[in-house]
């Protein structure tokens, strides 16, 4: 099923996916069983190319939850996949100053972060 659990199952296998409607062809995230365009419950997962554009980003300097302690500062970005769906994700940078050098419209590419017990689909600057 094209839901959150199915999305993360595929991430665990190393694939970032989005939902594709078999009825109307619409592509979307976050994952849900019904197509938000035509409402058909006939969706499948499709592997993303991994290319994306940065729409916006924030830098967390505060840990709002215990799970974020030890991570700050970190960047959360809003990205648009080349196939159309948008997702909120982490932007990974080599810089010691998270967020510096980012700009709207920047080209990004997928990088699976390995957190030990799970993978996390993140994005890095596309340098080529």
């Amino acid at each position, binding site marked *: 099923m094209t839901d959150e659990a199915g999305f993360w199952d595929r991430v665990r296998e190393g694939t970032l996916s989005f939902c594709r409607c078999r009825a109307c062809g619409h592509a979307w995230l976050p994952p849900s069983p019904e197509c938000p365009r035509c409402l058909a419950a006939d969706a499948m997962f499709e592997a993303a190319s991994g290319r994306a554009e940065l729409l*916006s*980003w*924030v830098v*967390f*300097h505060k840990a709002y*939850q215990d799970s974020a302690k030890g991570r700050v*500062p970190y960047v959360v970005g809003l990205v648009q996949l080349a196939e159309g769906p948008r997702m*909120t994700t982490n932007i990974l940078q080599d810089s010691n100053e998270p967020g510096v050098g980012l700009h709207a419209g920047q080209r990004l590419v997928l990088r699976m972060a390995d957190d030990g017990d799970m993978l996390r689909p993140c994005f890095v600057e596309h340098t080529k």
Partner: protein
Amino acid sequence: MHSVIAGIGHTRFGAHPGRSVTSLTIEAVSAALADCGVEKDRVDGLFVKYPTSAFEMFHAAKLADAMGLRDVRVCGGWDQGGAANISLISFAAMAIAAGQCEVAVVCFADNPKSGSRWAYARARNASDEKYGWFGTAAHYAMFARRHMELYGTTFEQLGTVAVEIRKYGARNPNAQLRKPITLDDYMDTPLIVDPLRRDDMALISDGGAAVVVCSEAKARELGVAKPVPILGFGQGLTLSARDDLTTTGARIASETAYRMAGLGPADIHLAQIYDCFTPTVIATLEDYGFCRKGEGGRFVEQEGIGLDGRLPLNTSGGLLSETGMPGMQLVIEGVRQMRGEANLQVKGADKVIVSGQGGAMQTQSTLILGR
């Protein structure tokens, strides 16, 4: 025939440890009824905004019980975050116009300051948790960054919103935060969720507020001293993933309200804009037509939102300074201005536009009041 806001009431702003939502609501409703001299037994409509920090099923019906309202014909709660209070006022006006009730109370209370703040720091789903995408502020920070990137909106412009609204709050003896700041103070404080600082963010407050709505004729019959006519209202919803992230449902909400009132932004010289976060003010001024999209930052810097500016706004201190409660304080200040009894009265302003919004700019409401 217009409906009017007949009475206004609110609790003290700040912390109310040990007080329940019901208790705070009753205090606010009592104050609003006393303000217009209307007996409780006249109330036959009860419209309630849900508290953010704790959901309660049948909240409005339980409040009717707690207030002993025997003859209520229309009663219910509404879930629209910070847009709810204005929408409920419009629903009350529509119910009155349709003969469904005659004297409506619109009210709410919440106690996140001394109670639970979980709603402001939570992840909205399991994926958000994995990315550390927490808290209400971050959604507005994401919005602000996009605005800055597309239109060149600056930290100084966000800061100007905070500085100007804090000035009003500092002069309001009832405000929770009465400490003015300079732009230098603002720029010197650390970023919390870059591009936002603490001074960009609403206060967290306990409290309750209420208004009494009825027809103009009913207000005369009841001997209401200073009824304030409701000239227009509207609502607007967008997808949270708007194609143009920076254009919100406030455009639709205000177009509906302007059309109903037969007015446009050029007719309006006073506003109460939902300032949960400073970028919201900038975007709402654009969507309300006070300037073009992208020019909200320059508007607050150059046209001015202070008492002597083009558009004085949040003249009692707004969510940034008077109280963080979600929106009714803005309506109440609008009413005081139209009555001519505001703490910082804006001379000559005979109309006021008031905004509400919730869900990180997704859902919007607009109210226009007159004299």
